[in-house]
């Protein structure tokens, strides 16, 4: 599979190898954050400019409804599996389920690039779907934990606010709207930074992610065989369901693949922060080891090509 030899995946692998070899290589946190901000602004802008050109299509509304539905529904089987197969407490299972219902921006960006390398790209409006899918799973997770989130005086409203206005949502949505407002002509004047630089920066960012994911994996103490299995099975299941749903309801093939990638991706930024406040008793080590240590690397290497292949197979049939 040629995507495995793309520079992006190779840099991810280099980072992981460096971490496993206990190399001294580290990328300062400020630099990692800077790259993440750059990627989110770039992807938001491009999405907005694309939608400014395409206009709001019925497909966008459809994709939005599908995304929201998935984000609400997908935590349920994940919760059940983590309780039964993973043998976790209700609170831990709820926290993990929220991670898998929500999405990972980086997985999405990597997926969009791999899609583009392999054929027609997803439409710009999928960025809006990405933003819509960040939050609902958190609410579902809290409901699954069957408790009012009032620990230490933190109200549900507070947590909702933190999640809706977390940095990545604001950046994505804001840049999307700016792209929409300035359109192609306005974008041209600032495009060099966001166009020419994009893939190179993504490589360096994935190098960092490889380091971080592998370190998370090797420092964790709470990952059982069952949980590792689930961290592979749940994204595959979610990815195939997302892709299928997109294809069946009439999204184009690339958009169906993108929806699959979103469904398969697991949050490791927004959801952990929300859970740390709302479900402090949940073991954040377990959920992060699963989403960041296992699911993320799997998606970047094998998962994304699988969902793309699946989307094409359905379309071709």
């Amino acid at each position: 599979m040629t995507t495995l030899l793309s520079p992006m995946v190779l840099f991810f692998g280099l980072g992981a190898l460096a971490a496993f070899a206990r190399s001294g290589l580290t990328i300062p946190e400020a630099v990692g954050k800077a790259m993440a901000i750059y990627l989110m602004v770039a992807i938001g802008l491009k999405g907005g400019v694309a939608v400014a050109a395409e206009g709001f299509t019925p497909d966008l509304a459809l994709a939005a409804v599908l995304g929201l539905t998935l984000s609400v529904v997908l935590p349920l089987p994940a919760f059940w599996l983590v309780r039964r197969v993973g043998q976790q407490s209700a609170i831990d299972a709820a926290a993990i389920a929220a991670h898998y219902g929500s999405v990972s921006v980086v997985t999405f960006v990597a997926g969009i690039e791999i899609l583009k390398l392999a054929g027609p790209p997803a439409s710009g409006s999928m960025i809006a779907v990405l933003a819509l899918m960040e939050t609902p799973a958190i609410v579902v997770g809290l409901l699954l934990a069957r408790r009012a989130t009032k620990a230490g005086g933190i109200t549900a409203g507070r947590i909702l606010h933190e999640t809706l206005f977390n940095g990545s949502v604001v950046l994505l949505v804001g840049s999307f709207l700016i792209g929409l407002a300035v359109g192609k002509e306005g974008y041209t004047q600032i495009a060099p930074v966001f166009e020419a630089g994009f893939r190179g920066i993504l490589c360096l960012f994935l190098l960092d992610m490889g380091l971080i994911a592998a370190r998370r994996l090797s420092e964790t103490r709470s990952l059982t065989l069952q949980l590792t299995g689930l961290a592979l099975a749940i994204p595959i299941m979610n990815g195939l369901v997302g892709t299928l749903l997109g294809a069946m309801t009439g999204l184009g093939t690339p958009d169906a693949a993108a929806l699959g990638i979103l469904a398969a991706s697991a949050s490791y930024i927004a959801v952990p922060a929300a859970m740390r406040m709302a479900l402090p008793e949940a073991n954040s080590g377990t959920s992060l080891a699963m989403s960041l240590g296992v699911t993320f690397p799997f998606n970047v290497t094998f998962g994304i090509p699988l969902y793309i292949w699946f989307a094409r197979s359905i379309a071709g049939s």
Partner: protein
Amino acid sequence: MNASIERVKVEILLDAPLCDLVTRMVEEAGAGGYTILLALGGSGRNGRWREDRVTGADTKLLLLAVAADDIAEAIVRGLEPLLDSYRLIVMTTRVGVVRGDKF
């Protein structure tokens, strides 16, 4: 040290997402101020961590507030319900301060 008055230094090790909550509680307990330092890494029952995580969720901060005895006690008492669930670490030390009237 003649000019120096005894006060209590309260040090709280906390997770970054809790920062707003904890600083609000410190202020409500009557502290005149506080200062926050960034922790770079550490280890505890939940394993090792380092700062260069993307996931700011487990960045740790060290909050430091100098206060009179009663206010320090109010800070600690206020935090007590959070200690177990949020796994805070709270330390108090007697320190000499100059400009003691300030605290």
